[in-house]
């Protein structure tokens, strides 16, 4: 770059920064260079014209615009909820809906289709009828009070042993009871 190009670049930099003066070296160059002096005068005049044009015809806000803006804002919800929380809220709502639909389908849906009774042959029916007295005797024996009591006693004993052994195991695990 020669001195004139450097000076013109400095002119633009000065105008960009809102200054109307140039660095000393450029000012010294302008003093002896008619072309750069004319350029500087023209650029400053252009800058002034653009500043005038930027303000001359621009519209000014009125009270109706402000009222319109504030009315529109008044219809909005209060800010402060970050967008990701709003997104999470929608996701939570969607999850609840899906879960509700699943539960409704599982428990409130139509009952399963009952299995159609199989049609037995006459021979099978005769054999079943013949076995009925023996089944009735067996059922009578199982339902007799001594058998029921014995069965309940066995179940109670098994349940008690299970609870005691589980509790002891847990107590040993946390160190309350020492190992045997």
């Amino acid at each position, binding site marked *: 770059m020669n001195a004139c190009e450097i000076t013109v670049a400095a002119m633009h930099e000065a105008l960009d920064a809102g200054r109307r003066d140039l660095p000393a070296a450029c000012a010294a160059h302008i003093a002896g260079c008619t072309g750069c002096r004319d350029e500087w005068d023209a650029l400053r005049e252009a800058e002034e014209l*653009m500043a005038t044009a930027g303000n001359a*015809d621009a519209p000014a806000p009125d009270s109706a*615009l402000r009222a319109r*803006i504030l009315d529109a*804002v008044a219809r909005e919800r209060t800010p402060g909820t970050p967008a990701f929380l709003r997104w999470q809220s929608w996701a939570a709502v969607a999850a609840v809906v899906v879960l509700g639909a699943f539960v409704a389908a599982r428990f409130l849906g139509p009952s399963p289709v009952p299995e159609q009774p199989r049609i037995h042959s006459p021979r099978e029916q005769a054999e079943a009828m013949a076995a009925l007295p023996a089944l009735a005797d067996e059922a009578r024996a199982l339902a007799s009070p001594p058998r029921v009591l014995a069965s309940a006693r066995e179940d109670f004993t098994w349940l008690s042993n299970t609870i005691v052994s589980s509790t002891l195991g847990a107590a040993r695990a946390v160190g309350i009871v020492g190992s045997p």
Partner: protein
Amino acid sequence: MERTMPRIPVAPDPPAAPAPPPSRVSAAGRGLVVECAAASDATLARRAAAGDRDAFAELVARHEGTVLRVAWRILGCRDDAEDAAQEAFVRAWRSLAGYDPARGDFRPWLLRITHNAALTALSRGRGPVPVDLDGAFGADIADPRAGSPAESAARREALARVARAVAELPPDCAGVFQMRYGEEMPLEEIARVTGQRPGTVAVMLHRLRDRVRHLVTGTKGERP
């Protein structure tokens, strides 16, 4: 919002002094108004983000002119610019939770929303409306240097040429022009609004300045 300066108590008041005129704004309300007027943009934005609509109204009062003018320069039509300004403030209200004063001033943040709203409206609408250049620069523009009617006429002609050159700018360049010369914003702030580097904005302005310089030179040649 009614702006009322607080009455400074001076004690003791003479017994015969007339009572102050009743005000429609309570003492608490007056304090709130004055507090809003004195608060910085960052403080108002923080309060507005917490739901304080009075604080947001003060921000609207401070920046509605800049927002309207930048939108108008991009869209070229006052009605469209008012729509874009309204849209920009509504978007700003919704996004206040995301505004961080530590990352920059409120004005470039708001103007970035405005810039995007105006360009979006432009892409959806019919395009920029030509500016009425005949009525844009009349005899009401005072020229302190115009010593004679001929010089005044020459300056008006120069301004009309500049206005025509600005009206022919692409919308985003027109927005940059308005921010630089209408709102007197520094390059760095304009770059934050447009999402460009300051050097890119500077090149845009240099080209515009050169173009206007040639217009000025032509005008000078036509002067008597």
